[in-house]
């Protein structure tokens, strides 16, 4: 690369409070954008808050999460002896007041919290850093993900691995939903479809992950020497382009699957039987 001679006009001293330096164009407005740039962060906040409130309520409610043969994805795998249903081996006895959801929520929560798409979504909408492109953020100082605690975003791939285990378990739950209340195979209800769709969307969300794209082949510099991994990388890259859509669709489907089981478990609705 050709080095360019310095013209003596390099980085300049920050202005008061770390804001625009005096040599920048003097424009007082925070942004000159005229479009509704605030709408997207607002919708993101509302959607995520709705999910957080609902999932917190359900996790602490500690009831109505199993309606034979369906188990809510918030509570699966259900590890304690206090669990309703029999979808997973009961590994230990915990205090009654701790909901079994709380033992496992850290994994899907951590996967989504460190996800490259959700990072964009909540940095923009909750932390306003920045709220929208070319709209000034309100913070006086910015260090990004260079230090504690945000440097821990780099563990995303480990949550991805854990997410795969959860996907396998939720797929198993969907398969178990082909049994009837008595445990006999050959049943299918609307709940089976709900759990199947949820498992499928979770697989799409996990497999379209940026870390997954890196692991399957992105880290290589010579695709030509690894044709199989190149194929994997190509498929994951195609999925990756839709990562945001899968992130929202799977978030919605998890909440909906839980809500469906909640409704069936409380006898508010009865499961629609196909056979």
């Amino acid at each position: 690369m050709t080095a360019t001679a310095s013209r003596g006009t390099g980085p300049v001293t920050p202005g008061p409070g770390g804001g625009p330096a005096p040599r920048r164009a003097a424009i007082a407005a925070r942004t000159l954008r005229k479009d509704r740039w605030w709408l997207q962060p607002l919708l993101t906040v509302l959607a995520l808050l709705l999910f957080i409130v609902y999932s917190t309520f359900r996790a602490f409610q500690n009831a109505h999460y199993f309606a034979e043969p369906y188990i809510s994805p918030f509570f699966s795998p259900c590890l304690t002896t206090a669990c309703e249903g029999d979808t997973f081996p009961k590994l230990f006895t915990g205090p009654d007041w701790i909901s079994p959801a709380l033992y496992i929520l850290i994994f899907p929560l951590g996967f989504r919290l460190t996800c490259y798409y959700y990072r964009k979504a909540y940095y923009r909408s909750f932390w306003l850093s920045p709220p929208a492109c070319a709209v000034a953020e309100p913070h006086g100082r910015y260090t990004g993900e260079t230090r504690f605690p945000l440097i821990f975003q780099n563990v995303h791939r480990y949550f991805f691995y854990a997410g795969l285990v959860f996907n396998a378990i939720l797929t198993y739950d969907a398969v178990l939903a082909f049994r009837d209340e008595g445990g006999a195979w050959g049943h299918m209800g609307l709940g089976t479809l709900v759990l199947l769709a949820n498992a499928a969307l979770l697989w799409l969300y996990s497999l379209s992950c940026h870390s997954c794209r890196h692991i399957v082949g992105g880290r290589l510099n010579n695709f030509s020497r690894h044709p199989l991994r190149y194929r994997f990388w190509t498929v994951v890259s195609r999925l990756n382009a839709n990562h945001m859509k899968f992130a929202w669709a799977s978030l919605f489907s998890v909440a909906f699957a839980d809500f469906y089981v909640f409704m069936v478990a409380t006898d508010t609705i009865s499961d629609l039987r196909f056979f």
Partner: protein
Amino acid sequence: MTYDAAFRVWRGDAEGGDLRDFTVAVNEGEVVLDVIHRLQATQAGDLAVRWNCKAGKCGSCSAEINGRPRLMCMTRMSTFGEDETVTVTPLRAFPVIRDLVTDVSFNYEKAAQIPAFTPRSREKDGNHRMQQIDVERSQEFRKCIECFLCQDTCHVIRDHEENKASFAGPRFLIRLAELDMHPLDVVDRRDAAQEEFGLGFCNVTKCCSEVCPEGIHLTDNGIIPLKERVVDRKFDPLTWLGAKIGRRPRD
């Protein structure tokens, strides 16, 4: 069809300036740069504006149009209503020289700091060989026209001048990614990407990808893969261990 458009253009220099109102004729099919040129020819002969190819390939006429970083030559007037005021300001992240012209030398200084392409030794017949599928990933980044709109919109330096010393900006992070992905290159730039060029400052909010006139997926295809490569090197104990005991060659 011709109509009179209301324009607000920032006029001034490093000492100060403000938005001035103009009414300028607009013809069908014109872009913002055409109107700025008409303004310069008819009402403001000393208006400073940098431009060159008028085809979205030289990256000279970067400015902010209604607050959004855009190329003036690629912004059609038909995207605005005839009664809409079009505001044109210089790039906010860089020192202003005069009117719409800014001093973008920050970018050239960062470019000069990046470790240059260092190919492995040639094959016995004196050639370098590489397969198309090995280079096409980084070819996307070669489309960059260096308009520096991504640098301008990146909040890390746009809103925090003090970060300029430790953050290279999206354009140069994809340059690092391009070189790191290159099948012939032998330099490991992962430590430098994190420590010297400030990769950790990026919080993947994707504004660089949104404003890129070449449609380069800077974040998804460049910066995030580079972050993952840095994780391999610095934050993942398993890959670190694998590399240490020789079970995990680079490729």
